[in-house]
């Protein structure tokens, strides 16, 4: 089981003002795997995943210690181009957030800001990413309708398509099913299983069954620390830490 490490967190501490949100987090994320991050509310899961593509840059008065690498490059290095990092590490958010534009334009936007101008190439890319996100069949007749008219689950798949279109290497999912119904959730999970063939995936989830179903590795966060990190199978069947066991058996959280 020696797989290639794609991203690595080394001794990461993170503070909102003076309040610590993450304490000495060390984690490896492997290529073509789904890494799940589980833990109760407020344990720092979202904070951590947002560090992986520097979405926390915008948070005022926050401070980071430690380093996070993407293929050996320190992504928080002042020399690193944040725009490049965010293109390589895409993100799908908790609440579907399509732009208030048409379905087509939603995907076109990402392509355009990355310098794509050729119309026919853009069209191909849009179709391609909608297919990859398993949305094409449902929207092919109404690409120019407002994205806001789609259902929640469709909107979320559109957000995934939008993310795929710019060809990221790693995709971060921050509780992607939190606002979806069970059927939409099942479709997104299926999609995750397909996407991991091509991409490296990190998913934050509240839903332990979901983590168990889709992930290869799981990290259990508690109060800003990683309590346990390992193969999903091991975490869920023979946890080493009593707190992990308490959490996954539903005694708290």
């Amino acid at each position, binding site marked *: 089981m020696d797989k290639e490490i794609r991203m690595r967190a080394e001794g990461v501490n993170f503070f909102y003002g003076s309040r610590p949100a993450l304490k000495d987090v060390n984690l490896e994320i492997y290529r073509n795997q789904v890494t799940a991050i589980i833990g109760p509310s407020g344990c720092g899961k979202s904070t951590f995943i947002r560090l992986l593509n520097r979405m926390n840059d915008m948070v005022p008065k926050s401070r980071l210690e430690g380093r996070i690498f993407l293929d050996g490059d320190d992504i928080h290095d002042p020399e690193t181009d944040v725009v*490049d990092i965010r293109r390589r590490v895409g993100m799908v958010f908790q609440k579907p957030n399509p732009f208030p534009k048409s379905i087509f334009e939603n995907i076109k*936007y990402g392509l355009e800001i*990355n310098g794509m101008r050729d119309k026919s190439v853009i069209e191909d890319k849009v179709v391609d990413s909608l297919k990859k996100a398993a949305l094409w069949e449902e929207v092919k007749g109404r690409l120019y309708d407002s994205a806001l008219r789609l259902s929640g689950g469709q909107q979320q798949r559109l957000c995934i398509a939008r993310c795929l279109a710019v060809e990221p290497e790693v995709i971060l999912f921050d509780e992607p099913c939190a606002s979806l119904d069970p059927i939409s959730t099942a479709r997104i999970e299926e999609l995750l299983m397909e996407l991991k063939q091509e991409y490296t995936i990190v998913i934050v989830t509240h839903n332990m069954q979901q983590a168990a179903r889709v992930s290869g590795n799981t990290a259990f966060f508690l109060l800003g620390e990683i309590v346990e990190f390992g193969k999903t199978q091991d975490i869920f069947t023979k946890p080493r830490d009593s707190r992990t066991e308490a959490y996954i058996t539903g005694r708290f959280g």
Partner: protein
Amino acid sequence: MRRKICVTGVFRKLFERTFARSAGNVSVSAGSYRNKQAAQKAGFFLLFCCILATLLFLGSIVYFIFAGGSKVVTWGFLTQWPRNAMTEGGIFPALLGTFYLTLGAVTVALPLGLACAVYLCEYTPGSLALNAIRIGINNLAGVPSVVFGLFGLAVFVKFFGFGVSVLSGSLTLGILILPGIISASQEALMAVPNSLREASFALGATRWQTIKKIVVPQALPGILTGVILSIGRAAGETAPILFTAAAFYTRRYPQSPFSEVMALPYHIYALMTEGTHPRQQTVIAYGSALVLLILVLLISGTAVFIRQRHRSYNG
């Protein structure tokens, strides 16, 4: 009269509903209950009087302007030049001047105000400087308009040497409406959900791309509403153009931005304070006031329309 009846009806319904609710939930002795009921009735009556007084003021303003002006407002009144020392003819040059001044003011204030709002909202969120600047802008909004007029006279007319001209007037009016445009734009920008910004950043967009292609387009209806309301304000102000742009009478159309112009609000002021035929002039002043009133109402109506339309889009 019909309006009054309608208001009373609404009022009674509201009162009855409140009454029914309290009767259902609270069981108190009949006496104190009756007292409360009486107090409530009195309170509502007082509020109703306040509404009535407000409507009365508003109504009487509109009524007097209509009564005084409706006779003179014809198509010719809008398209002709004044004649016979302002006692006959129309107000066309004043309308034109107001159009130029307003257009100029928006041309000055919109880019400046929008840029300022974008900077405050998107580049310096939550900082101390932001609050200081915001206080400054709010104070600017509270400055009396005649002070803007004097400022315009000192700076644009004298210091920059633009003279009494469309340019000086536009700049002065522009500064006057700047705070309004900034705060309207700021509100509109802040109403854009953060999730859209994050979505854009996560695709590898720069701040500037996000602002240009996502945030500002989304905020545009709100910004436009602010702009249109400012147009209404700029069109109606007298004091700022008193020393900077307006003339009692010009013989020709303005030839360049450096010409003086006639303008509606100043035209009204001048008709009422200058000239030798007060009786005939007063009628024309009423007519001009009516035109100005309708103009501003139309402009504000457009703003309401845009806002409504935008709301139904997102709902």
